[in-house]
């Protein structure tokens, strides 16, 4: 479990350009600010966003955070919307870290490895939670909500209060209508339930 007393958590967010990992980051950032934590969050913009591997280093702490990047071996969590992308950053995971990842492969490259091998590699991590984000997102209303399914799956392991996460999911999607808010909250709940079961 993360150090809720020390209140420090280093998270690598991973996925493929277009999967919405920056929306996950925006929700966590605002929840952390609400709880009075320091935060730094390094993102990837530009060329890689065209369907390439994207990642974000998100650091939360009660104390001053110096580096915008997480050192290798220092990440408390890898939170990925895509299994191969979760594996890509395993070298960043700490010896007690957790991987929370979708099991749904994003097949936009010709040499995608065998999925079973990818998922086996994920399960070699000290701790891992694998969730079928595509199925749950469809259940919530759209496969585009996979990012919020994964945020839900990570929620039990984050040092942030779930209420605050839900509140900023609402704030994020509110400009685009109540239906979208409801759908993304449902995706969040389905992900959280899948991770807890």
């Amino acid at each position: 479990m993360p150090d809720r007393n020390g209140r420090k958590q280093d998270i690598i967010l991973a996925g493929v350009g277009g999967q919405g990992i920056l929306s996950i980051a925006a929700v966590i950032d605002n929840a952390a600010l609400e709880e009075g934590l320091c935060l730094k969050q390094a993102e990837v913009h530009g060329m890689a966003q065209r369907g390439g591997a994207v990642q974000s280093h998100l650091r939360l702490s009660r104390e001053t955070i110096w580096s915008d990047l997480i050192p290798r071996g220092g990440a408390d969590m890898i939170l990925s919307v895509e299994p191969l992308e979760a594996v890509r950053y395993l070298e960043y995971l700490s010896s007690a870290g957790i991987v929370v990842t979708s099991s749904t492969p994003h097949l936009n490259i010709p040499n995608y490895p065998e999925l079973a091998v990818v998922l086996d590699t994920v399960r070699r991590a000290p701790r891992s939670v694998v969730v079928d984000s595509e199925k749950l997102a469809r259940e919530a209303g759209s496969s585009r909500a996979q990012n919020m399914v994964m945020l839900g799956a990570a929620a039990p392991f984050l040092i942030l209060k779930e209420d605050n996460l839900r509140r900023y999911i609402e704030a994020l999607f509110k400009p685009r209508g109540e239906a979208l808010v409801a759908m993304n909250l449902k995706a969040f709940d389905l992900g959280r339930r899948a991770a807890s079961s």
Partner: protein
Amino acid sequence: MSGYPGLSQAELIKRELFLKPEVLLGDEAVALAAIQAGLTAAYSYPGTPASEIMEYLLRPPADKRGYFASWSVNEKTAYEEALGASFAGKRAMVSMKHVGLNVAADPFMNSALTGVGGGLVVVAADDPSMHSSQNEQDSRYYSEFARIFCFEPSNHQEAYDMTRQAFDCSERFDIPVMIRLTTRLSHSRSVVQPQPPRPQNDLRLGQGQDWTLLPVNARRRFRMLLERQKDLLQASQASPFNWLELNPQGGGLGVIASGLAFNYVQENIRGLTEKPSLLKISTYPLPEDLVRKLVDQVDRVLVAEEGYPLIEAKLRGVYGLPGKTLMGRLSGHLPAQGELTPDSLRAALDLKPLAGFDPGQLDLAGRPPQLCAGCPHADTFKALNKALEGRPGSNVFSDIGCYTLGALPPYNAVQTCVCMGASIGMAKGGSDAGIRPSVAVIGDSTFGHSGLTPLLSAVQANTDMTVFILDNSTVAMTGGQDSFASGPALLRIVEGLGVPHEHIRVIEPLPRNHPENIRIIGEELDHRGLSVIIAARPCVTYSSKRRG
């Protein structure tokens, strides 16, 4: 006036409108600081990692902004527009990616001689590791080259505070002032505490004898710039953004760190048994007295800087530091290229890597960026590849944009990408040297940026070449900004440059038009003179945003 027109400063303070801490990108911290420093006009051309500065300035509706902000057709134009606003006595900002400053180098260098009216801040965002760029040049050299003042923030609050100060500094010393950012600050988010806003300057025109760089004036202005150097050095040495913490025991290790590298040093410093002396550098010209104080005290010096080894090279000079060890990118203690990381600093500080999880040997398939599904460029490249079959010796010169991804499989359609607009000039040079067919591929916005002049040159020579302008009506790679040369306007520009009417062809790159497009391209490849083929279809990713 501030970002809140109609409210007095006292009213703003009362309402605490600016006191709320915000989570901002480094780019956004710079933009907010500029607004609150009394910005009147801001200009930019899209380019990673600088685009989000202008995106932030454009966020409020135009009639609510209280300042002028817009994209420009290229960085040189943006710089000149900002310089004009400064001439008028108003505070102006121009922002761009590092290589954009190459394009703007002419007005930039000369503005150090004209001086400024209102504060003029030039933001250059460098991209070490070339996340989204064709080189990793270090803009601090440009500030030295022009002999101006440069701030290099390490974090978001500094990005805000230094931008506020940069405007004052510019007016105080009568020079443009640079803010040097790097990708990891531009595109990282953290909390920023804003300060009370300052009103905009009054209109006040510059003096002709200062701004007219005839040799007689330019010599005088250059002498004044040189005389001002000692003041700049003094200001840098006195800046609270630079500070020195000496280990009272003396000897041992001293670290000189700037920009993002400073953060990586701090991240690792608690792991050291003996605390090194530490000098943080945030302004240039380099505060030499602080450097001397540090070096005099220690036995070994590690210089950690993002980008090129500018500080390290100064310390090394020709004679080195006799009796002391100097470490950095030049010595091999830090990597010679690419951005620094907390891990590269661990190694340079003689710390072992963190004992994290060992995933063993992973043979991972890479996931490079690629054209979006349904991208019009894909259809153009498929048709072009087909039309070029059976034409050995052909070459396709390309340019900067999403279509550069046509260099990668499955298209393998282009052979060059150098700088904005280079496709057309290089295709002409290639044709002059004997390449047949010689083809250029350039996007609509890149054509507006730097494609008109080389095309005019090709028109005058009636060069045997075929120029593709891929008109997706947006600047797609950087997030869908408006293009200056698209649709009917683009057609009029091409006609106006004098390209023969019968050799301006417009195709719609769609799978259903594939055979027809191959035929048209083939005809123009056969033509022994200049042709322009406009492949027009809106970007699949950003066209809906544009309509909305």
